[in-house]
């Protein structure tokens, strides 16, 4: 019997009260739509103002970014390449370590180990990013300079590595969820054919969970692209088009922080660049998020 069948007809006063409450709740739920609309609208309006003064061709083809200099150049590539570089280094750390941890926790570890280790790893994800930035600048960079003498004080290598450590629990947790969701019948069938535990994990369970695993990696990449404080503190403030991980660079997020720290009056070109860069960042992460959402839905194996 459905719940609605049991419901008494409310009297008029009650009915009006119920209606008002429902409308209030509906308004609360609409806030999320308004937030998205607010983000898109505020980013777009100032970005349009930016492109009234700077051509979109210059934005996409110029290789220098000097909006705070006397001769202003507005090429997004130095910022975009730095964002890509730091995120790629973070992925090199987070993906192998996170994936192996996920496979180990899901297929090899005992229930007790899993229940102890998972919350401990979650602590890593709960540390504020400004703390990671501090750690990268004051601990990891001096340490790495012992091995790589030409490493600058500010560099994308140490920012990227620390960002990767931060993302290990992110990749591990989401991938472990995907692996655990694979039904046991598949594992038992593989054991029945004489597979070892390693073969079950790598040849059966991992391929079956691949959509969830890829989605977790894409989401982690999106997180790295939008990450701000670690790169703002440890990667430097020098916009340059390079893939050299030992020199100071400036990511899109670092640029937004740098301009925000100064007093930028509304209506100046510097103010508009905030939104042009923010809009580019939003598009990047939005595409990655939609892609991971699509991956999960499109390639999910459905089991009874």
């Amino acid at each position, binding site marked *: 019997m459905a719940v609605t069948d049991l419901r008494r007809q409310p009297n008029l006063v009650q009915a009006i009260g119920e209606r008002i409450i429902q409308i209030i709740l509906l308004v609360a739920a609409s806030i999320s739509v308004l937030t998205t609309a607010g983000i898109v609208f505020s980013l777009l309006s100032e970005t349009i103002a930016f492109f009234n003064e700077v051509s979109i061709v210059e934005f996409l083809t110029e290789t220098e970014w000097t909006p705070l200099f006397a001769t202003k150049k507005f090429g997004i590539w130095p910022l975009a390449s730095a964002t890509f570089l730091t995120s790629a280094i973070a992925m090199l750390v987070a993906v*192998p370590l996170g994936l192996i941890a996920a496979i180990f926790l899901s297929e090899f570890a005992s229930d007790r180990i899993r229940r102890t280790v998972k919350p401990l790893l979650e602590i*890593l994800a709960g*540390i504020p990013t400004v703390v990671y930035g501090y*750690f990268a600048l004051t601990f990891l960079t001096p340490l790495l300079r012992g091995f790589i003498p030409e490493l600058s004080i500010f560099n994308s290598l140490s920012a990227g590595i620390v960002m990767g450590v931060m993302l290990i629990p992110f990749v591990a947790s989401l991938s472990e969820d995907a692996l655990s969701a694979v039904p046991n019948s598949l594992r038992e069938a593989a054991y029945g054919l004489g597979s*070892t535990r390693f073969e079950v994990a790598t040849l059966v369970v991992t391929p079956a969970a691949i959509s969830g695993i890829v989605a977790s990696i894409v989401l982690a990449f999106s*997180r790295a692209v939008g990450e701000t404080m670690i790169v703002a503190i440890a990667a430097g403030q020098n916009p340059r088009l390079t893939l050299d991980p030992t020199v100071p660079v400036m990511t899109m*997020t670092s640029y937004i922080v740098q301009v925000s720290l100064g007093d930028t009056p509304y209506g100046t070109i510097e103010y508009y660049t905030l939104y042009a860069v923010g809009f580019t960042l939003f598009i990047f992460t939005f595409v990655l998020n939609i892609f991971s959402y699509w991956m999960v839905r499109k390639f999910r194996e459905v089991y009874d």
Partner: protein
Amino acid sequence: MSTQERASVNVQPAEAERIDRGAGNLKWRHFKGNILTVLGWFSIIFGLGTLLVLILDVLNRATGIFSGGQNWLTWEFFNNFDSRFAQRAGAKAAIVGTLYTISLTILFAFPLGVAAAIYLEEYATDNWFTRLVEINISNLAAVPSIIYGLLGLQVFARWLLFGRSILTGALTLALLVLPIIIVASRESIRAVPLSLRQASYALGATRWQTVWHVVLPQAVGGILTGSILAVSRAIGETAPLITIGALTFVPFLPRDIFDIFTVLPIQIFNWTSRPQDDFRSLAAAGILVLLAILLTINALAIYLRNRYQKRY
């Protein structure tokens, strides 16, 4: 079975060799599992080891407990305002600013988040609007926090004329953590069994009476746990508050919610950016305070989760 024997039952030599490699190297096949176990432990220890090194390093810089340096975590640290001289600088304005901002954030985000969750679980029918709201919530959860800062700067600081105030900061953070509260509250409300609602309706309760007197008391544990975790996220956020223009140097306490302000993470960032070693130590002291606050809050969340955990 050797290769010769298998050849006699008409298996091609190449095929036989393939099977043999599998069967004959059973030890190796099992050993690969051991390698993965070792690598798995390595990954976990690498992550947790980094965490441990981070905490010990910060502890040492802040208090000089291992190296015998100066202890920066003193009474003056809590009671002094920021200063150009490290010996006189403290985090009073930042700690009070964090307290004000987060209290206001909870005031905005908690009722809104829970109300939205109630609507989606108890009232919404499966139509385009509900789907739009759900897609929005999952997408908003993945939007970088600095983008929320740009939103707050434009909408709250400029259009609504709130300026670089505590109010702007709290509204921005509230929007940022709203998806976390909604998702946690929805899960908790969904876990309340249908039979309880049916019993309530059978006694003549209206829909809202059922939600308020039956569903919410059952779901309160999960809702509180999720909201506390959202708060701990808000406390550590730096980027959106820098973007809306929270200041880095504030030598006074805010008088009301329209006053300019700073928060602990921004103070830490500011001290970290100064080149002198003494300020780096001050930053470490700030980090210790921040981590201590977060640890307390998370312990509270775990306590609440255990306290209210129900099985049906």
